[in-house]
């Protein structure tokens, strides 16, 4: 049997890596992937807890997270496509109209 701590630690590490990716990738799509990675890390923690505490609610939450992630991906990628069309670039640092 594996202590729940391990799972939590793993999820923490993955989350941290997600953060790093989120900050350090320039490609919008990749940044989006980083977000998905963080979501996955959280899911891991959810499942670990639900298994440890013997409550299925955690897994239900995971399902909801997955659904939301799917919806988010659909819309987000749509936005990305638009951005790429209009700005001819996928680099976030070139998408910088949002300033004074």
């Amino acid at each position, binding site marked *: 049997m594996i202590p729940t701590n391990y799972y*939590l630690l793993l999820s923490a590490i993955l*989350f941290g890596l997600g953060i790093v990716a989120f900050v350090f990738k320039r490609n919008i799509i990749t940044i*989006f992937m980083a977000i998905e990675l963080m979501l996955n890390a959280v899911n891991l923690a959810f499942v670990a807890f*639900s298994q440890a505490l013997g409550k299925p609610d955690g*897994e239900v939450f995971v399902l909801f997270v997955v659904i939301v992630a799917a919806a988010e991906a659909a819309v987000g990628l749509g936005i990305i496509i638009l951005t790429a069309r209009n700005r001819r670039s996928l680099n976030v640092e070139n998408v910088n109209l949002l300033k004074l």
Partner: protein
Amino acid sequence: MNAALAIFFVLAVIAVFGAISLIVQRHPIHSALSLILVMVALAGLYLLMGAEFVAAVQIIVYGGAVMVLFIFVIMLLNAGEEERTNFSRLALYAGIPLAVAVTGLIAASIVGSKAAAALPAAGPGTLTSTRTLSTLLFTEFVYPFELTSFLILVAILGAIVLAQREN
């Protein structure tokens, strides 16, 4: 060092490796593949924990739909290598330390907390057979469930509206 633990470590290593490779890869496709690797590894972990349904969903939805969408878009936009611009000095200098700090913070609190240590081991329990899960989903969480269906509908519409060429 029993079999389960070994499997766990293998999968964990795969996952972490995938995540790191997601960061270091220059080409979005490779990042996407690494992410898929992570997800498959996570699915394996779920199976290890005995959350079989979640594992299947993880693969089917994330692996089979979401990531395919990503790759699809990457192909569609024919995205090339990402250029490593550094316009944001803030991100350049403060990024790594902060990320490490957050991770360290969470990790430390997990290690340090009595409660987390006191948690029973997360092994294949009898509780989450798919049946109980679905029962829960359709009794206690039925309103959120319906709401998510609505959410998906909205998302579909949004995606269509966004992606169509305005004429």
